[in-house]
């Protein structure tokens, strides 16, 4: 790693940041989340904290801009240079700028958040089918108001779940009109406009009036990019026009002809030869999270590393499962020291946990006898001492047993206590404590009434009462349909009721009756808006519902609001 000459660094640890504007490519909530996660990359390994300001001057001012954007280092159009940031200090120092001629995504193509409709803001599901036709982008088919929409499940005809895609006909961002939609036509400097325009601006951003006369009302907003819009060129925001004619030849899809750099482009009118209107075709885009995490490294005082896998390596490459490289950690800790608080502890022998069940509400009398035999206290098992749970991207399942979080993976499990910040204990062998179980556990829960432990693997489940076990039995015995391949999560709902999650659905199990309640399945995203619809671990912990996808968790409070998104590794596993 490298630091800037003179080891430039902040003289305080409570760093502030402010997001000055947004890209038309991504919704503001996705952008906010990407930046927050990028800061967390650094706050997880240092004593630094990051607080967002909404006005005034922050240490790190974040903005999107194109080409000449107000500093001496202009951007260069699509690709090439993606972003830059300044080392810590006053004024422009510490600021981070992102080239808005790039296509900003989460690194894997368009991420289209929906609004209105009936999908509670879920992401578009591409491809989706509608009346027998497959769609890979938002469409206006089936509508007379020209509003683009998408299905949020694979099959609209079957599921009827949909939302509207970003469109200037639905809302704008920034400006002074509080997100009001464009009004077409509108008058600007005496001319009429039927679509968003860059006229009157020198920063290349498309805007519109939100009343019919800008000259009179001066109300305006910026136009969000549609997922079908071209990037850059001279037709930003317009869709490709297929077919289009280029040098006398007709093209029905994007082409790299005419360019030496191999980039795909299209005409945005019927004839490029006549109109010279064009733009680049949407691609995977660049991960705003990854680029921001890199730039914030600069803003904190790190220069470029020459280690290819380090975050601070100067070139962009997309990684699915990001984790901070040791080189980056050493660099930032050289400047700011390591995170305060207890260090992760190595696996230690387990101790009996007879006093580790604090919630009095959960210890009320039950209508079934408690197991008479104490559960076996597991001892650390030398199954594979090199297995470090802190290096796992995801676990087979996470659940709370006897007040402790249990993390299951490939026949082993680890535990963390809710009462201390000590790191994970383990690995323990599943086969020692629950010998009837297979290696892979998809889901598990402890019935709050009876303290029985339910384990699910594939289409089978087991019930442990102390050392006694029932099962395996088919999950169909519980009333779950034969079509589901596995149960991926469980949330206790009061006493005797448990929600079981699989795919995009959940069912409510009456534990005592051992049957599924009427009215189920229901769609997860309808009831639990804002959490990933493909969560692979769902569990209840300290009054919150947790939905995990890969290394992240979404925490939902009792009002069903997502109040925190964080890393399983740091916040739950306490690595």
């Amino acid at each position, binding site marked *: 790693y490298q630091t*800037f*000459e003179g080891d430039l660094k902040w003289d305080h640890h409570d760093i502030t940041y402010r997001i000055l504007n947004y890209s038309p490519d991504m919704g503001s909530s996705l952008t906010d989340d990407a930046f927050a996660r990028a800061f967390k990359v650094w706050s997880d390994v240092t004593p630094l904290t990051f607080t967002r300001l909404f006005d005034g001057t922050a240490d790190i001012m974040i903005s999107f801009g194109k*080409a000449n954007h107000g500093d001496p*280092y202009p*951007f*260069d*159009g*699509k*690709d*090439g*240079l*993606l*972003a*830059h*940031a300044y080392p810590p200090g006053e004024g422009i120092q510490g600021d981070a700028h992102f080239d808005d*001629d790039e296509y900003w995504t989460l690194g894997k193509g368009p991420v289209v958040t929906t609004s209105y409709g009936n999908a509670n803001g879920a992401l578009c599901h591409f491809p989706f089918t509608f009346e027998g036709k497959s769609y890979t982008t938002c469409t206006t088919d089936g509508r007379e108001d020209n509003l683009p929409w998408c299905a949020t499940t694979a099959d609209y005809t079957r599921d009827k779940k949909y939302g509207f895609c970003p469109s200037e006909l639905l809302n704008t961002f920034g400006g002074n009109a509080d997100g009001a939609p464009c009004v077409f036509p509108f008058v600007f400097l005496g001319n009429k406009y039927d679509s968003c325009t860059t006229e009157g601006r020198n920063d290349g951003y498309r805007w519109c009036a939100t009343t019919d006369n800008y000259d009179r009302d001066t109300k305006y907003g910026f136009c969000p990019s549609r997922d079908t819009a071209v990037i*850059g*060129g*001279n037709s930003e925001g317009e869709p490709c026009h297929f077919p289009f004619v280029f*040098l006398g030849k007709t093209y029905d899809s994007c082409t790299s*002809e*005419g*360019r*030496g*750099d191999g980039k795909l*482009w299209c005409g945005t009118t019927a004839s490029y030869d006549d109109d*010279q209107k*064009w733009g680049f075709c949407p691609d995977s885009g*660049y991960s705003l999270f990854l*680029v921001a995490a*890199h*730039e914030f490294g*600069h803003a904190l005082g790190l*220069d*470029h590393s*020459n280690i*290819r896998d380090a975050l601070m390596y*100067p*070139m*962009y490459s997309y990684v699915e499962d990001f984790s901070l490289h040791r080189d980056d950690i050493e660099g930032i800790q050289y400047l700011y020291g390591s995170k305060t608080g207890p260090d992760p502890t190595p696996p230690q022998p387990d101790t009996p946990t007879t006093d580790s069940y604090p919630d009095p509400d959960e210890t009320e009398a039950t209508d079934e006898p408690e197991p008479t035999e104490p559960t076996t206290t597991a001892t650390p098992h030398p199954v594979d001492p090199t297995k470090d749970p802190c290096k796992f991207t995801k676990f087979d399942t996470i659940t709370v047993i006897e007040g402790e979080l249990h993390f299951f993976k490939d026949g082993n499990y680890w535990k963390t206590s809710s009462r201390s910040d000590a790191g994970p204990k383990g690995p323990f062998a599943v086969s020692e404590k629950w010998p009837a179980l297979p290696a892979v556990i998809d889901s598990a829960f402890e019935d709050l009434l009876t303290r029985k432990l339910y384990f699910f693997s594939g289409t089978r489940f087991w019930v442990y009462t102390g050392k006694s076990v029932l099962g395996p039995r088919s999950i169909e015995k519980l009333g779950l349909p034969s079509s589901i391949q596995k149960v991926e999560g469980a949330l206790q709902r009061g006493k005797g009721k448990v929600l079981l999650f699989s795919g995009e659905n959940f069912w409510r199990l009456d534990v005592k009756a051992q049957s599924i309640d009427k009215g189920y399945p229901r769609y997860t995203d309808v009831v639990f808006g804002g959490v990933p619809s493909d969560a692979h671990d769902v569990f209840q912990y300290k009054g919150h519902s947790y939905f995990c996808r890969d290394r992240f968790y979404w925490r939902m409070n009792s009002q069903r609001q997502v109040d925190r998104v964080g890393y399983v590794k740091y916040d739950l596993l306490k690595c």
Partner: protein
Amino acid sequence: WSLPLKSVFVTFPGDIIKNMTDMEVAESYLDKYGYTKKEFRSGFQSMVSTSKALKMMQRQMGLEETGELDKPTLDAMKRPRCGVPDVAN
């Protein structure tokens, strides 16, 4: 047998990136990212030679240090990256 396509390159209006030769790309890259910064010695200043600058860049990027504008080096220069110079000035 089909005839090979004759590609015709055009200048697209609004396209910021201009058609440049490989050497122009390299010189621009080395300059922009600090590899050809001026050296100050005994009161004189001189530019770092292109070969030396290329070697510095190749070392930074983990490429074979040939000092030549070979294909891996040129490919690396065309990859998307951060705009902060690699060599401080």
